[in-house]
């Protein structure tokens, strides 16, 4: 089994240096995949990656919820199975709808009408019947877009350019609008708690206006952060919508969208810098459920630590905000708290509070336009980040996430201990070191994806380790062979040498062994087959679990690995991660290219394929299962030659026809098999038929090989085809 292929490597991501073109939407859509069936999980993961989506896999609903809660705004879409052991899929659906409001697609092999109906009534965006086909997954992005458009409609309806209308409406909405900010804030808070009703209210009230308006973008957490980044880059004073739009590079975003958002942002910044009513703000916020709210101790004297912890704040921004807020003038803007809410709340919330904002905007518009700029903006808007999830503007958030990702990776390590993993928790050290190393190389998106997969693919402990290794070293066959030579010649090495598919496979077997040798906390009895699966995956043909690998021989391999990678004082727990470190430093370029598996990088893929071929040719030695890795590698050339020669024959166009004929013959043979009568055929008969077909197929194969080997023939003094 090859976890690297399964879940870890993002199917695509922004180019490593951050300078390449951002991929077109929907590529990069961030999907959280939840399914307890590992087979389905793997298949779906692969399919989604082929669609160029970012995939995070999860086999437990509870874990999925934790992830969604911890990493708010990190996902665009959730794909979940219906029948899961720990939690009903519909329950998960409800939770997600309530807490994160992400589009959720349900999947099941159960296609009964009532189950599908249940999905609809629980709020699923779609229901896919298993087995899932690629075609079904290609278009799931539409649900993300649709949801965001709907949310935006509400948002824009209430907080639109026509502020006169909105002003009136806001006054209507706010019971205590006349009594000032407190009343308004209370109103906003109440509305937040009664989300659904409020949503309907908003939609009803502004329905007519929405029809006349153009569809707009929902300013999600991530989109907003991108916006903020762009604005900061340009300088808040100098930022113009056109340039911001260019910097953000989000498909579907118009200059008008950016312009209106920029206007709001500027107004918000002004208010935010005035610590006017933070005491009231505190009181109200204290009781709020949303993480964003809880994180803000006070508006004026911001609790920066809390902010930093809950959001991905850049340290310099925190400091800047300090200075920014102190220097803010008291403009008597009583609506600062409300504005805070407006920008911080969820999409639905914003609809209501922006009414209030717009009313206050009018009041201060004339006076406050050019006040407070600068870093304070960032923090306020980073806070925004948490509440909305929307189409990810792919590719440009790297800078924003600079240190954020480090902090982000700080989270998983502590989270790991919280997750009740089957079989104990993983030592979280490796994640941080890996994350750091990856971070240094600027691989923002792939890293985040990988870290997600590190933490989240709870198929079994070996997965995460395997992924870490495979991600960084999957291309380096030379290093693998070096490692292989140090692996003791036990079952592992035999299987591994027999199946030197890629270095990734090799390395995944090693961490499996590490698990055995070094993780005393993991109940090994639980995972003998998991460990063995790596070997099984490697060997390919041994389905029954290989006998449990004893700890003693593995110690040798652990040490060997340690020695080969020049570990510095790391304990045996994490030699694999130091290897990653070494790989990374040495091969960062290749790794980047490898990780970014974009179509237009097929050149690099071929390059990778090259090294893979070297490994693959070693498969020729598979026949001898006791051969050591060294022997296999050395005998590559010989065995390849042998095979080529053994299948040699005259090569010309007529052969193609023969092959075609052969194919037809084979097809006919297949057709002759009595499809209906198969249950009557005994096991032996089936195998016999298999052999017949196999032999015929092998002939076809050989002939085709000769076709393909045309050019190689020259080396062996064959007569080249004319």
């Amino acid at each position, binding site marked *: 089994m090859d976890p690297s292929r399964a879940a870890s490597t993002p199917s695509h991501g922004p180019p490593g240096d951050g300078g390449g073109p951002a991929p077109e939407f929907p590529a990069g859509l961030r999907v959280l995949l939840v399914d307890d069936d590992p087979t389905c999980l793997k298949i779906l993961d692969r399919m989604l990656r082929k669609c160029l989506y970012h995939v995070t896999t999860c086999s437990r609903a509870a874990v999925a919820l934790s992830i969604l809660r911890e990493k708010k705004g990190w996902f665009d879409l959730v794909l979940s199975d219906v029948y899961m052991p720990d939690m009903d899929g519909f329950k998960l659906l409800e939770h997600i709808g309530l807490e994160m409001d992400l589009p959720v697609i349900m999947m099941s092999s159960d296609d009964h009408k009532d189950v599908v109906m249940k999905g609809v009534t629980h709020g699923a965006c779609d229901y896919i019947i298993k087995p899932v086909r690629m075609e079904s997954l290609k278009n799931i992005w539409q649900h993300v877009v649709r949801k965001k458009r709907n949310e935006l409609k509400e948002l824009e309806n209430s907080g639109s350019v026509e502020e006169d209308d909105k002003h009136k409406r806001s006054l209507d909405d706010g019971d205590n609008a006349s009594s000032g900010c407190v009343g308004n804030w209370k109103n906003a808070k109440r509305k937040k708690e009664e989300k659904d009703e409020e949503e309907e209210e908003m939609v009803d009230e502004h329905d007519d206006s929405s029809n006349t308006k153009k569809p707009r973008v929902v300013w999600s957490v991530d989109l907003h952060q991108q916006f903020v980044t762009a604005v900061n880059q340009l300088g808040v004073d100098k930022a113009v919508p056109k340039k911001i739009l260019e910097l953000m590079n989000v498909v579907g975003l118009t200059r008008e969208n950016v312009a209106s958002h920029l206007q709001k942002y500027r107004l918000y910044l002004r208010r935010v810098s005035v610590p006017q009513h933070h005491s009231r703000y505190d009181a109200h916020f204290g009781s709020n459920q949303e993480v964003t709210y809880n994180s803000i101790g006070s508006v004026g004297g911001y609790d920066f630590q809390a902010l930093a912890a809950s959001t991905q704040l850049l340290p310099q921004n925190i400091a800047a905000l300090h200075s920014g807020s102190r220097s803010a003038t008291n403009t008597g803007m009583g609506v600062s708290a409300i504005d805070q809410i407006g920008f911080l709340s969820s999409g639905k919330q914003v609809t209501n509070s922006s009414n209030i904002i717009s009313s206050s905007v009018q009041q201060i518009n004339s006076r406050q336009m050019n006040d407070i700029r600068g870093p304070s903006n960032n923090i306020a808007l980073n806070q925004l980040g948490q509440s909305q999830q929307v189409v990810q503007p792919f590719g440009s958030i790297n800078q924003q996430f600079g240190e954020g990702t480090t902090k982000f990776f700080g989270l998983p390590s502590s989270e790991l201990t919280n997750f009740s993993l089957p079989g104990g928790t993983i030592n979280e050290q490796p994640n941080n070191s890996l994350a750091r190393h990856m971070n240094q190389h600027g691989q923002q998106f792939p890293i985040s994806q990988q870290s997600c997969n590190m933490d989240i693919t709870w198929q079994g402990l070996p997965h995460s380790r395997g992924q870490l290794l495979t991600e960084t070293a999957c291309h380096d066959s030379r290093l693998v062979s070096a490692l292989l030579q140090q692996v003791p010649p036990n079952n592992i090495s035999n299987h591994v040498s027999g199946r030197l598919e890629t270095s990734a496979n090799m390395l995944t077997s090693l961490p499996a062994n590490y698990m055995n040798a070094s993780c005393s906390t993991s109940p090994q009895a639980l995972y003998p087959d998991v460990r063995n699966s790596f070997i099984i995956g490697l060997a*390919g043909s041994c389905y029954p679990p290989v006998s449990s690998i004893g700890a003693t021989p593995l110690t040798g391999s652990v040490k060997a690995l340690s020695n080969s990678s020049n570990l510095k004082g790391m304990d045996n727990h994490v030699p694999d991660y130091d290897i990653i470190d070494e790989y990374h430093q040495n091969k960062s370029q290749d790794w980047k290219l490898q990780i970014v598996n974009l179509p237009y990088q097929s050149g690099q893929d071929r390059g990778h394929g090259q090294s893979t071929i070297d490994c693959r040719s070693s498969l020729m030695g598979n026949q001898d299962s006791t051969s050591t890795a060294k022997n296999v590698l050395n005998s590559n050339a010989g065995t390849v030659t042998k095979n080529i020669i053994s299948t040699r024959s005259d090569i010309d166009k007529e052969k193609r026809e023969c092959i075609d004929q052969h194919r037809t013959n084979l097809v006919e043979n297949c057709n002759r098999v009595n499809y209906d009568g198969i249950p009557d055929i005994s096991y032996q008969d089936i195998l016999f038929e298999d052999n017949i077909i196999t032999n015929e197929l092998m002939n076809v194969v050989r002939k085709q090989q000769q076709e393909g080997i045309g050019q190689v023939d020259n080396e062996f003094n064959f007569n080249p085809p004319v």
Partner: protein
Amino acid sequence: MFIYTTPVYRLSLALQGFLDEQFYQLEELQDESSPNFVEEVVTLFFRDSSRLMANIDQALEQCPPDFHRLDKFLHRLKGSASSIGAGKMKNECAGFREFCSEENLEGCLRSFQKVKKEHTILRQKLENYFQLLRQVVPVDKATRSGS
């Protein structure tokens, strides 16, 4: 990757009814970036399904048998089988589920035997299939790299 993408291979297995269209989907997912995907998935399937079937065995031995629990296992097994395109096995699982819903222990036992048989047969067929691929593919790749 000409050889195992040729319809011949798939036909040979598919027409015999053991694997269906879904298996083709899996093969489509295999490419240079994931060169052993199909085999990995199949391996994963057999590991997981073996465990499931052991659980089913246990559940059937219980007195009285917990049909509800059995049904859950079966649903999972059927889903797995269908996801790799194991058509016959999926059908046998469906039959098993029928007996389960009727709480017909006798029928359950019989159909479970069938399920196990299909499982074994499929495993053997796929083993052969992959072995064949292993003999072919490396040469193919080697020649392609030369071209």
